[in-house]
């Protein structure tokens, strides 16, 4: 038993080394004073400097955040309402809605991207008489579309765990159905809604493929900018960008964990 636990520890460590090697390389070479992404010639912060001078990158970062916030808010509202609505449907209706909801999750991103692109081009050409429709709005619609299933799937379990007698009790005590929903059901499913929101936000920030197909050249998010930067053999400034993103993600994860640990403690009390 001892031996096998030693082996399993070694196995875990080996896999983690492999998983983290490229990330470590990224971080180390972001501080490289030379131009190379493979030979380390000395410590410097020059790539961070050039990063913060690059207006296009800052602009892309701004676009990404605006897009993530808007698409997460809209998809959370629509998705939560959808999850509530779906719970009232008859079984066969629910089956149809749920199969359609699964489509964006089952389809490869490239197919979702292509199908939305064709929709925009088709509508632009045949209904609006304008072929240059791609841009912020088409990207926003696309992001909401691929976020929605994840929001619905996060809210549904919370809704199922919610006691229906509670909202009945609220109405017996004089609440309107709408009032009962906002005062009783909504607080009860808030964790599911929050999970859905965070998921939508991160999916939106991370998406490249669908944005790539639906943005035209008119609107650039950070992943799009990275794609354009890595088209050529580039300087290590992209490593500086990656490092900053890794650090941000780490901080966020730590914060979320502290937050969760706290709310767990509260619940136990």
């Amino acid at each position: 038993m001892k031996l096998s636990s030693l082996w399993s520890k070694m196995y875990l460590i080996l896999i983690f080394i492999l998983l983290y090697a490229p990330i470590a390389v990224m971080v180390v070479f972001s501080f490289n004073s030379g131009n190379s992404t493979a030979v380390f010639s000395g410590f410097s912060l020059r790539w961070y400097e050039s990063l913060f001078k690059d207006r296009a990158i800052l602009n892309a970062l701004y676009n990404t955040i605006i897009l993530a916030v808007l698409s997460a808010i809209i998809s959370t509202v629509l998705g939560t309402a959808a999850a509530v609505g779906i719970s009232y449907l008859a079984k066969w209706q629910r089956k149809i809605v749920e199969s359609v909801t699964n489509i964006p999750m089952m389809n490869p991103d490239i197919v979702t991207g292509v199908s939305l692109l064709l929709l925009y081009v088709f509508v632009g050409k045949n209904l609006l008489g304008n072929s240059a429709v791609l841009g912020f709005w088409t990207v926003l619609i696309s992001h909401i579309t691929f976020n929605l299933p994840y929001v619905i799937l996060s809210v549904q379990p919370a809704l199922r765990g919610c006691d229906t007698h509670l909202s009945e009790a609220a109405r017996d005590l004089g609440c309107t159905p709408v009032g009962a929903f906002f005062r009783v059901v909504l607080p009860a499913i808030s964790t599911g809604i929050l999970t859905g929101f965070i998921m939508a936000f991160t999916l939106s920030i991370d998406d490249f493929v669908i944005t790539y197909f639906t943005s035209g050249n008119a609107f650039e998010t950070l992943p799009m900018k990275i794609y354009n930067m890595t088209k050529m053999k580039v300087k290590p400034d992209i490593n500086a960008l990656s490092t900053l993103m890794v650090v941000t993600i780490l901080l966020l994860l730590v914060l979320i964990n502290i937050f969760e640990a706290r709310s767990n403690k509260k619940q136990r009390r």
Partner: protein
Amino acid sequence: MNNKKSLGAKLVGAPYYLWAAIFTVVPICIVMYYSFTDSNGNFTINNLGQIGAYMDTFILSICLGAVATAICLVIAYPMAFIISQMPASKQRIVLILVMLPMWINLLLRTYSLMNILEDEGIINNILSFLNLPAIHLINTKTAVVIGMVYNFLPYMILPIYTVMSRIETPVLEASKDLGSNWFQTFLRVVFPLSIPGIMSGITMVFVPSVSTFYISQKLGGTMELIGDTIDRQFNRNNDFNSGAALSFILMIMIFICMAVMNKFSDDGEETIVV
């Protein structure tokens, strides 16, 4: 009263039903429309007919995707098992470590991998430092498979871990009490119970692997996978009709794979119930 409520309740979901119809169902119909028309909008089956010319690309994508999925499964299965056997407090930390790379954009991970695998990259620098002969990895199928495995491994570990962590210790103890050794317990109890996780892991790795285009562009050189062909038709050749036809076939192919997978995992669940 009841009728009113159900009408109101139905309206709550209506905006989403409308959204899903316009932005999920209609686009798929439009993909079909483009697949079956030429650039003037006349009916044709030429787009689908010329798929034969891309057969090799389809086969290459499926093969590389399948190899990457198999490697992920082999690596992830023991990993998921080991994690599920750890004390709960440690499990949480290890899981965060598994998920963290997923939060870093795929483009960045792949780009970094490229710097490692290049002819004058880090692996070869280390090899030459040790006076070993250099190995050529970049722009090979091996490099593309490494890229897929590296990027999608967490998608295999997590679902398998999830089903394994639900297997309760009394079940394993019962199996031991009934005279099974460790290997028999694994083969007859743990493995059958983990099949649904394996199936969702396989789809979660196979689908993005088959349809990728960035990984093959960065690590495969001039190699073209089906995703690259679709990208080329849309973004360079402006041949939307042929691109739509390729996407349509890719979609059908993946739906068939999923249906087969679902069938298998359903069977798995049934045997558990029995």
